[in-house]
């Protein structure tokens, strides 16, 4: 009987620790949300407030600012972030579909398929800082600094390993027999890809697209280094505004930062089952 009770206390302690872990994870997100709902003055009051309506009166001041004419720059950065992430995800998915299909369906002789796959993977290891100088010089030479196309092409490159691997394994999961049957019926290999394999792999491809979108959306180092004004994205704007010596409007910057974390937040929950596998290149089968 006593043992039974002791076991329960242990379980309660464990449950409490788990709840604390969840709270630690969620608090910063909650803090961002409530700070965005404070007025500029109440956000930096001497006593921080935590609970809307009880602690402080929520206000849409920061969001009104963001929809006012003065926020033209924020809107431009938001637009740049959305466009470059969409465009780059499309490029890396497009290239990834062909490469993934090739790796799943053909045997390459000179290099083995696995070698090609690991070569793509190895690109993830490349630290962007190590290629900063050449990128800068190349795009300067091409008159392509501060250009949305430039950063989109770079994001597509950075995401290519993940999209190739995800799509490759999605195609591998399709039984060969289905494609063979189509082939007997007289389909060419490109017809098989378009009409049969793609529809069967569409969930994985959609998830790869979402992940590529988020990783582009989050990119900061190269974007900041290669853009000044026209092609600035949301992270570049946030970093510049919040490290400026002129002081920061907490509620407005919180609202903008909230925009920056919402797409990743949605994808994190929607693509949950695919994220680990994608980030560890199949080292984990979640």
């Amino acid at each position: 009987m006593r043992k039974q009770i002791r076991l329960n206390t242990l379980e309660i302690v464990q449950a409490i620790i788990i709840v604390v872990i969840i709270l630690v994870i969620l608090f910063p997100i909650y803090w961002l949300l409530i700070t965005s709902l404070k007025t500029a003055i109440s956000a930096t009051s001497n006593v921080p407030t935590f609970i809307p309506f009880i602690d402080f009166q929520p206000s849409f001041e920061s969001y009104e600012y963001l929809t006012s004419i003065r926020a033209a720059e924020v809107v431009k950065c938001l637009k740049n972030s959305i466009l470059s992430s969409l465009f780059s995800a499309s490029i890396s998915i497009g290239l990834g579909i062909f490469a993934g299909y090739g790796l799943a369906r053909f045997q390459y002789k000179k290099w083995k398929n696995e070698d090609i796959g690991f070569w793509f993977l190895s690109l993830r290891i490349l630290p962007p800082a190590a290629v900063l100088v050449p990128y800068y010089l190349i795009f300067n030479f091409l008159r392509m600094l501060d250009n949305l196309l430039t950063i989109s092409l770079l994001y597509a490159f950075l995401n290519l390993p993940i999209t190739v691997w995800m799509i490759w394994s999605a195609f591998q999961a399709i039984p060969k027999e289905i494609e063979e049957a189509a082939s007997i019926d007289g389909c060419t290999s490109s017809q098989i890809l378009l009409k049969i394999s793609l529809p069967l792999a569409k969930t994985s491809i959609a998830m790869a697209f979402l992940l590529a979108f988020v990783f582009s959306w989050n990119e900061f180092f190269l974007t900041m280094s290669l853009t000044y004004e026209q092609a600035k994205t949301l992270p570049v704007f946030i970093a510049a505004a919040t490290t400026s010596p002129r002081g920061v409007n907490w509620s407005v910057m919180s609202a903008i930062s909230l925009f920056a974390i919402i797409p990743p937040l949605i994808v994190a929950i929607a693509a949950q089952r695919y994220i680990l596998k994608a980030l560890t290149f199949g080292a984990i089968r979640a």
Partner: protein
Amino acid sequence: MSRSWLYVLPAIIYAATFSILPMVLSLSLSFCNYNPGSGLFNFVGLNNYLDLFNLARFWNSLAVTFLFAASAITLELSLAFLISYLLSRETKLTKVARVALTIPFMLNPVAVSYDFKMIFDIDYGPLNFLLKKVGLPIIKWRTDFAFLTLLIVDAWQWVPFVSLVLLAGILSISPAIVESGKIDGASELQIFRYLIIPQVSNLITFLILFRLIELLKLFDIVYVLTGGGPGISTETIALFLYVTALQSFNLGRASAASVILLIFAIILGLMLMRVMRRR
């Protein structure tokens, strides 16, 4: 060449253009002095490397990067062990926790850094408020404890990832192994230490290398939270490269540092590939 190459070739060419070409350019430039403003360009042999090796700031950035990586990996793995152990049972609460753990490392690092900049704020931040409430002295997080502050933010983002990977490894272990331990009368902790950890040792090696490679790139949180300061005490190699290349415009020196960084990355990368192929 067969037609099947047409499928993979576009991706290979695309990736090679953005990786091999700039790497070759980095290597060539590291033996030259080049100033894009004046157009001055000349071969200087190993001078950039000698110059770099005599530069305390370069060694500092390497020390900061590796010290941070070592601390972060130790901290993150330890916490992740605890968390993955707690979450290895299937209950409603652990399921909620697993969903929550998927979030932090996906979020925009710049926005997260700004968020923590507020949380760690000396005057208005909730953390110091809490310290005051319980009667502790307030802490100048980003100046007096810059390294620790960065460590906490990095851990907030990446402990969840490491935990989930370990958890996936633990859950893939055959229940028979755990069952045999129970029959032999091992305690839950003994089972974890002597039966489960050895089963995931390969995964631990993978995680250490994976995090090490990511931490070589450490830039975003440092840029926003400490700017490499106070002084250069939290300046990582990526930040050093950024400052050298785009603020001082010392492209030769930056290229030499790039080559050194590349060598580290390639060594770690080859080790990671070996671990992954073994699986």
